[in-house]
């Protein structure tokens, strides 16, 4: 949320075009890993397939955990949950944020005032503790995590959408639509929302990072879905079973690295899209 105010906007042209390609490659790699998990994972991630605490070997490339699960298989399967939660929660945030932003910006008046004060309130309550509170009551499941992120993650998007709508509203074609007698709802759906695409696409890509990080964070705190393996859950068990005190680096290093690399992928792609769609960031 904080990060949305920190636009980059001016890296060397060559670096930028390269960075979008790198970002895309990373994302393709992770998505393939998630989809092909049943075919490429060497073992069933939920089965005890080795001795506890085995170091990396040719049989278990990333070793095993305290129960003898194969860590490489867990990591490959973990991509599914992390991506799923990231994408779904980003969809939720963008959906709610867009609806509120469009209504607020287009209709204006007291509706705008109420919606924007609501936005301010949600924005000022600390996100992480709020989401901890929500998920601990709703119960730890993938859906509850997605719902909670969506409920709390929309305000900054709504604000950006609103100010964009305010400028879109001034366009002549909106006036023309009004002149031929189009109603508010028709204009919003037919003319305003399509005009928002250049704003929303990069926001969506960037919001996926927040979803992935929030899922990982909640899992790490013991609020992850206990029936699913995600990168955050692997790190949770590593922490709880004292993996680093025992020096089991192969348990700690890979899941966090994958979260970081995946996040970087979406970040590189998202900021390139942002500059592509909104050249005013480029100028600075």
């Amino acid at each position, binding site marked *: 949320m904080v990060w949305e105010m920190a636009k980059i906007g001016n890296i060397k042209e060559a670096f930028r075009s390269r960075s979008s390609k790198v970002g895309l490659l990373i994302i393709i790699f992770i998505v393939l890993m998630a989809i092909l998990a049943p075919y490429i994972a060497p073992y069933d991630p939920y089965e005890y397939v080795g001795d506890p605490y085995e170091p990396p070997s040719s049989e278990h490339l990333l070793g095993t955990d305290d129960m003898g699960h194969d860590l490489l298989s867990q990591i490959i399967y973990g991509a599914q949950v992390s991506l799923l939660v990231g994408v779904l929660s980003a969809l939720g945030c963008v959906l709610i944020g867009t609806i509120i932003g469009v209504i607020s910006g287009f209709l204006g008046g007291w509706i705008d005032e109420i919606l924007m004060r609501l936005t301010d309130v949600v924005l000022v309550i600390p996100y992480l503790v709020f989401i901890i509170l929500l998920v601990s009551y709703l119960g730890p499941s993938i859906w509850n995590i997605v719902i909670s992120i969506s409920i709390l993650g929309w305000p900054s998007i709504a604000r950006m959408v609103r100010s964009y709508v305010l400028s879109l509203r001034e366009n002549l074609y909106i006036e023309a639509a009004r002149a031929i007698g189009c109603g508010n709802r028709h204009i919003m759906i037919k003319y305003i929302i399509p005009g928002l695409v250049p704003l929303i696409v990069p926001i969506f890509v960037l919001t996926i990072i927040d979803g992935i990080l929030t899922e990982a964070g909640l899992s790490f705190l013991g609020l992850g879905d206990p029936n699913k393996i995600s990168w955050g859950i692997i790190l949770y068990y590593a922490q709880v079973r004292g993996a680093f005190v025992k020096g089991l680096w192969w348990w700690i290093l890979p899941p966090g690295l994958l979260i970081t690399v*995946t996040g970087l992928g979406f970040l590189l792609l998202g900021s390139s899209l942002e500059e592509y769609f909104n050249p005013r960031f480029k100028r600075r």
Partner: protein
Amino acid sequence: MSLSRYIFKRITFFIITLFITITINFLLPRLMPGNPVDYFLRDPSITPEERALLIQQFGLDKDVFTQYILYIKNLFTGNLGVSFRYYPRPVTEVLLSRLPWTLYLLGISYSLATVIGIILGAYAAWKKESKIDLLTIGIAFITRSMPIFWLGMLTLYIFSVHLGWFPLSGAVTAGAEYSSFLDFALDVLRHSILPMIVITIFLLGPPALITRGLVLDSLTEPYVDTAIAKGLPPRVILFKHALRPVSLPLSSYTAILLGYVVGGAVFTETVFSWPGVGRLIYEAIMRRDYPLIQGAFLLISISVLIANFIVDFIYAYLDPRVRLR
């Protein structure tokens, strides 16, 4: 907008937000399936007398409206119920005993991150596309994508487990006796260096990037050209001429950072077993200690609200457009 109107608006917002936070806290357990009493009294170690007392204090056998009145009344007298995990200690007492540790850790890391971030961002803007610029952007990009608890785990693994330079956990050496306050302070310092570094790195990105963006804009202003033409050294141009006009928007951005800081505390304190409010939240989640989670949510939200409120006032004082009109 006049100053009094501005202050009035901020106070209204503060009170409404406070009210909404309290109401959310009140409603959540009651909106959930099951009996709300469970969430207050689920712990088996609560004695029948204590149970009866809590039911009476919070009116848990009465209607929702009465409960709400009692809840607010209890809140203003500092009664947030009894912690399950630290039974029979009241939630308020448990929270307050942990608060100084968090304030110490966060206060220093937040200040460090802001100062280093601003300096880094300003230099990055000055030497655009140089090594320091790419370094700043690189740090910001990586810390944005990285889970802070993982950074903490790695740091702990490398510097405490592997190299043995720093203690493994906690804020003080267990069972240590100190001959003087200085002894104690040094021990705490030794324990806090790693978590402090981790939080500082984690918080560095946003102020650095925001400063960079703002300074890039202000560097195109004519008064900066004048300063360059006068032959002033870059440090003076940067910090006296380019940074000063952006200090206002910067101060409002750093206020928004406050909510973000909380995340840093919860994760880092958990990894380093730091005895603060953040670690307490983790312990409360582990035990499904609902009164404690709610208390922590309330304490942290109110702290952030108050901090925002203070920043609003500083902003009004700094900004002549608000102050003088």
